[in-house]
């Protein structure tokens, strides 16, 4: 995957807010991961159209004071290795 590739959630994966856990969770076949707020912010921007750069921009617009470029790259690489993104 290159940096210009649009990021897409793997088929069968779903991001959802769970009030009982006071957190976003990532749901997939017979499994679930509780996400920290930063991970949830990034995943909520994964829409099948945006690439890493565009996701970083969108996030930067939301949090103008933070330095995010490294964080997004790192998260995307972990999420891809976990099979959440494809």
């Amino acid at each position, binding site marked *: 995957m290159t940096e210009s590739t649009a990021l897409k959630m*793997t*088929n*069968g994966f*779903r991001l*959802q807010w*769970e*009030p*009982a*856990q006071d957190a976003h*969770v990532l*749901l*997939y*076949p*017979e*499994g*679930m991961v509780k996400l920290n707020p930063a991970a949830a912010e990034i995943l909520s921007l994964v829409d099948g159209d945006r690439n890493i750069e565009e996701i970083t921009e969108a996030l930067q617009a939301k949090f103008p004071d933070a330095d995010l470029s490294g964080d997004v790259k790192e998260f995307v690489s972990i999420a891809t290795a976990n*099979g959440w993104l494809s």
Partner: protein
Amino acid sequence: MASATSGPRWLLAELTYKCPLQCPYCSNPTDYTRYQSELTTEEWIQTMRQARDLGAVQLGFSGGEPLVRKDLEQLVAAAHEMGYYTNLITSGIGMDAQRVADLKEAGLDHIQISFQASEEVLNDRFAGTKAFQHKKEMAREVKAQGYPMVLNFVLYRENIDRIEDIMDLALELDADQVELANTQYYGWALHNREGLLPDREQLAAAQASAEKYQEKYQDRCRFLYVIPDYYETRPKACMSGWGNIFLNIAPDGSALPCQGARQMTHIDFPNVRNRSVKEIWFESNAFNVYRGDEWMRDPCKTCEHRHEDFGGCRCQAYQLTGDARNADPVCSLSPDHELVTQAVEKAQKEEMSRSVKVAFRNPKNAKQLLLNDSG
């Protein structure tokens, strides 16, 4: 007794004990024919609603064979509407292309199809019925209709040597994920343990094969290999602890902290027909009795691993030692560990492969086993 601080996260809805298959490794209770009265559609919907309100979010429709229930589509639609992630755990028998489409329309997220072996003869012998070709067709249909596809193969003495054929079949069917799950010894599987438990050599070879495929096909398919806990020295963290995240509702509405718990006759399991899920989860003796660590005895009570493995599996402790408060005998620290090592040593004998007959899961054998128990 401890009480829960949060609600269940997983709801397993065992819709029925009826099943067209007769697998001798089935985890259903051997006396399943005693529980004939199934929850109605409305009762299931109310139960799912109550569990969802407590925070349950993963929902498995299981059985028996859940496709036997004609209202499955209706239950899936209701669960989807409530915000559950819905999983159908099926043999594929009772499925056709139209039903796969109807379930998708109802909002089903995932279908897991189980196989008994990599080829027709052994598959159908262990299923106790003609099933293999239809399973393959249904796996293709599930994939074609855009579901994520997980295949499940239970491993046992007679099929484990063909694990590479099994993984090749999964690749041929384009599975996204494959569970290569060694038999867990509960229910029918415990009764048939001698005929099912592989020997050390078989396991080592299977594990090596699994690792080879995991490496080779990592971009294509996820192979999950689960070793049998009988060959471990540390017990599994069963259900992440009793009454912690998992709620099982049996076909008759009995609420169980684990599928295997029904055998514990000293516990009066509450029923969703006359108590709310909230009351059952937080207040019932059945869910509080082995919650946390207050119930533990030595060696668990003072063990440094007790918050990692929770003393292992309560059902396994109960069925092997007669007391659920004992350490899971799989644990090498358990004074009863030899109950497991003896079974393992027996499995090393070559004649085991030929001499042991397994009992198929069917009403006739269930009746026979009940008679044996009472006589």
